[in-house]
């Protein structure tokens, strides 16, 4: 079951580092088995950062919740 709490728990593991760099990763919505997040800060405009965080966070979400669908960046 994909819930806001479980997604937040995963995001909370990377968030301190992103915040320390002056950015943030915010959960916008959980829709069914998928979630949408927004990346802000210095890394937000960087394509390679998007790829890194997107793939890494999605993988971690799926590790916690095998039924997890897709992570969308907005």
């Amino acid at each position, binding site marked *: 079951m994909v819930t806001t709490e479980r997604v937040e728990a995963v995001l909370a593991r990377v968030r301190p*580092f992103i915040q320390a760099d002056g950015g943030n990763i915010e959960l916008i919505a959980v829709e069914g088995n998928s979630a949408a997040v927004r990346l802000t800060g210095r890394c937000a405009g*960087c394509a390679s950062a998007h790829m890194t965080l997107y793939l890494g*966070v999605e993988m971690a979400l799926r590790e916690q919740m095998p039924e997890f669908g897709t992570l969308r960046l907005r």
Partner: protein
Amino acid sequence: MIAPTPPAPDVVVGRSARMRAVFEFLRVIGTSESTVLITGESGTGKEVTATLIHQGSRRRHRPFVAVSCALFSESLIESELFGHERGAFTGAIKDRPGRFEMADGGTLFLDDIDDVPLSMQVKLLRVLQNRTIERLGGTRTVPVNVRIIAGSKKNLQQMVADGKFREDLFYRLNVLPLTLPPLRERREDIPALMDYFIERYYRRKGDDVPPISEAVRQAFLRYRWPGNVRELENACERIAQMCSCGTVGIGCVAASVLLQSDGPLPELPAAAAPPPAEPPVFESAPTPAPPSLSQDAPISLDDRMRELEASLIGWALKVSHGNKSRAAELLQIKRSTLGDRINRCGLGHAASSAHDEHRVPTVAST
């Protein structure tokens, strides 16, 4: 006297107590010809260390041959190490020297010795005892002059206790034992290692070296690094390849480093505190690495005492700049006793070069 070491292809970075003990060991064994057994997890730098030992030895102008004993199937190890004659087996179309012969006069690094099957261990033992080899399919006995350094991921003594490693071969190899600490046990070296590798990979690309954000440093300090220095090096190479932002930010760090999944973040040790300046002399007396054994594994008190003795003698010789009478005073033993102990520990050659500071292959952080 010893000529300056030729430029090392690689260096060992670190100023932690654990690494200072390793450098101290390297310095003390100096030009010894004895067999060294290097134990350390994957990625802790066994081969780099073996290269440094070779370069510090009198064999440094002779070949250094490294061979992983895990790469080959059991039957191939023999042909790889000892070579074969033409026609020894299908496909043996010409004579081929083995690694022992290729390393003649130099140093042979037998890595992954813990992966050598028991049946092969007997043959290896015989070669190490007789210092002669026979090629597969050959009848000629070839004498070989090689200095052996063995590398092991696992604690061989434990493997002996479990019946997986021959006791006689273990004692043949365990003459000068060296344990390399995993990176998580020397976290205070992480910043220096980061700077070293980041600089290396940006320079290799021909780019300026960018500053590293504090968040990235924190992430590196907190990660467990199961793959040790090799993993950290790869993480730095990845950053150098991906990041062109001017400052290395968190977005360029592999997510696995940020998202370590094994429970709560480990406590940071004194890593955040500034590193001590030059350690006082006595502190640099080498403390032998504590046995990295599982709790109920047997340890040999005699071996440990010998290690301790060797490192304290090394310390005394260093402090006394190789003056044995002074060293004996420091240790509160007779000069003649010290001579006997030095010989017993195989430190004979190290003693004469104990003050050759430039031979310590280290890059300290600044």
